[in-house]
């Protein structure tokens, strides 16, 4: 599904190297988790994959189902099935949540040569999905993320993911700021979407989320590289001992 080879990334504006040779392959239907200390480059990786400006790829490649991602505009990557649940979801004043999502859904359908969803069909689908995530009708009408609580913003990201039905979902610290019940809702939302044709890359600091969303593979990222890859037990090890031992092992 997603293949990242020797990815080197620096900031466009300054001479600061952030990713220093990331290698990562996520197979179809798999869930991979990335853990790692603050500032190690996890969010940067998700931004570069989704095409945010301000970064320069100096070496390496990233493909989604064989398509070169790095050559595409952000919206083309989205239409190809890449979705990023933002660590810090963005507020858009004056634009209704529902309007935003419908515009997005139809833009992707159009890009893929599919018919647009009618207003009625769209409403039917979004109501059902919002209900599962306990997002009320009121929140669907409010401007995108404006005045949402931290947890509401994260649930809203998962609603968007459920509506857009992407193939490759990157979740950047979606569990941060969620209370125990909300975490369960989000995890259920993710698990409901798990299938053979869809993969997940879950960035998190906590083992707890991985109790609910069982990963196939866990990676540890430090200083712009994946320094260790293992099974779910690796997350437990981090939870219990922190990163010190792992960082030590590396040198």
């Amino acid at each position: 599904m997603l293949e990242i080879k020797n990815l080197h990334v620096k900031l466009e504006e300054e001479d600061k190297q952030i990713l220093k040779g990331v290698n990562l392959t996520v197979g179809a239907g798999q869930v991979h988790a990335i853990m790692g200390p603050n500032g190690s480059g996890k969010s940067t990786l998700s931004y570069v994959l989704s095409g945010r400006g301000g970064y320069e790829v100096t070496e390496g490649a990233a493909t989604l189902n064989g398509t070169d991602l790095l050559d595409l505009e952000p919206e083309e990557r989205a239409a190809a099935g890449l979705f990023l649940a933002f660590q810090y979801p963005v507020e858009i004043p004056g634009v209704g949540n529902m309007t935003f999502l419908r515009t997005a859904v139809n833009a992707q359908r159009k890009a893929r040569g599919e018919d647009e969803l009618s207003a009625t069909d769209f409403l039917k689908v979004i109501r059902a999905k919002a209900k599962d995530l306990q997002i009320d009708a009121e929140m669907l009408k409010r401007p995108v993320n404006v005045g949402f609580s931290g947890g509401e913003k994260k649930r809203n990201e998962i609603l968007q993911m459920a509506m857009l039905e992407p193939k490759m979902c990157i979740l950047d610290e979606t569990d941060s700021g969620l209370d125990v019940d909300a975490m369960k809702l989000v995890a259920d939302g993710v698990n409901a979407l798990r299938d053979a044709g869809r993969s997940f890359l879950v960035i998190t600091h906590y083992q707890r989320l991985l109790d609910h969303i069982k990963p196939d593979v866990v990676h540890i990222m430090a200083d712009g590289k994946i320094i260790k890859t293992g099974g779910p037990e690796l997350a437990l090890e981090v939870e219990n001992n922190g990163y010190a031992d792992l960082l030590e092992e590396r040198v």
Partner: protein
Amino acid sequence: MTALDNQTEVRDGVDRETVETVQSMAGTYKYGWNTDIEMDYAPKGVNTDIVRLISGKNEEPEWMTDWRLSAYARWEKMTEPTWAMVHYPPIDYQDQYYYARPKSMDVKPKSLDDVDPKLLATYEKLGIPLKEQMVLAGVEGAEDVPAEGRKVAVDAVFDSVSVGTTFQAELKKAGVIFCSISEAIREHPELVKKYLGTVVPPSDNFFATLNSAVFSDGSFVYVPPGVRCPMELSTYFRINAENTGQFERTLIIADKGSYVSYLEGCTAPKRDTTQLHAAVVEIIIEEDAEVKYSTVQNWYPGDENGKGGIFNFVTKRADCRGDRAKVMWTQVETGSAVTWKYPSCILRGDDSQGEFYSIAIANNYQQADTGTKMVHLGKNTKSRIVSKGISAGKAQNTYRGLVSMHPKAKNSRNYTQCDSLLIGGDCGAHTVPYIEVRNNSSRVEHEATTSKVDDDQLFYCRQRGMDEEEAVALVVNGFCREVLQALPMEFAMEAQALVAISLEGSVG
């Protein structure tokens, strides 16, 4: 489905429209085609003969001709104002046609088949429904054909003349007069005499005075006491002929306790040469009456290098003459190379209210200097100004507003909110508020913000699948939401689409 859900659905529909329109238009001015119709022109230039000729073509009584001539005499002694923050090459007032009308208007067509198909095609492109197209084209008996859907009475002004007004009969039943101003001068001289020039006197300003001398047509509305106008009234103005100035004159009178909502839409073909438009709109609102006046101004803005476009110099003023009179101006100004326009409210009656909601978009080399004047004369008068200015490309956008509280306007209130949004680094936004408070019980509040389109917002939209132009349109529509919501539904859709179209090419 609940009422709220219905609304969401419509709003959603609106947005899909925006997106579809943007995509189908890709980079061009939508109304930029030109209709090749045989026209009757008066000779170029302006002088007393031309003024007489226009008056004669409209079969006006002598008092009207004299009114025009005295305005012309005054105009000859006036000089063009230069205080606005707009720059344009000198206008040669003698190098314009002041009168043009489609030849086919000479004889009334019997059925749609007899109508100049090009005229019909024009209306169709403008999105005017078929039944209205028939009436507008002057088809006999078209009024009796049942119309589908919601009713909006339309008057269309094609270059210099009004080509027809729909739903006249039904409006007549309610006592509402809605016709072209030339017809009103002939058929309702007592009303025209009583009100014309009482809000914008012929001596008001350079452009208004010129208009008073040479206005060729426009719309007239009279709503009698206690009548709620049974449908929205609307006028489409279109400049088609080349080198032709359009000088329309609109007069709206809402008598005691009446209500009317009036919509105005404007388009013009693409031309390399600039074209002049100098309109005057006068609104009289008597005791307890209410008028909503909405404009979607989409005159041709010129090309991306600043060539061509409409020079739009407009004087619009509403006079809340009676106590508790209310007026609401809503404008979406996306077109024109140069816009000079300050729809104003004279709050004369006690407890009268004026509101002004504005979206002004300037892209490429467009220049907009627009705003409002709220003149508080009566006690307990209230006004509210919400202005959203969007600048892109090399455009300059100025909000110029006057709030004046006179000594007798005790306990009056004004609230002004003025937001500017910049797209790219070569454009400018300016806010010029003038505030005069001449009593100590009144209060004026003014808030202003200037911001840039946020890259994070654009990236967020694009990550969800929208292309850059869709993303900008969505963010800008969000920025304008308060004003868009003040528009009647039909116009809100058109306006959202226009916001998107007028910002094309502003990113990337």
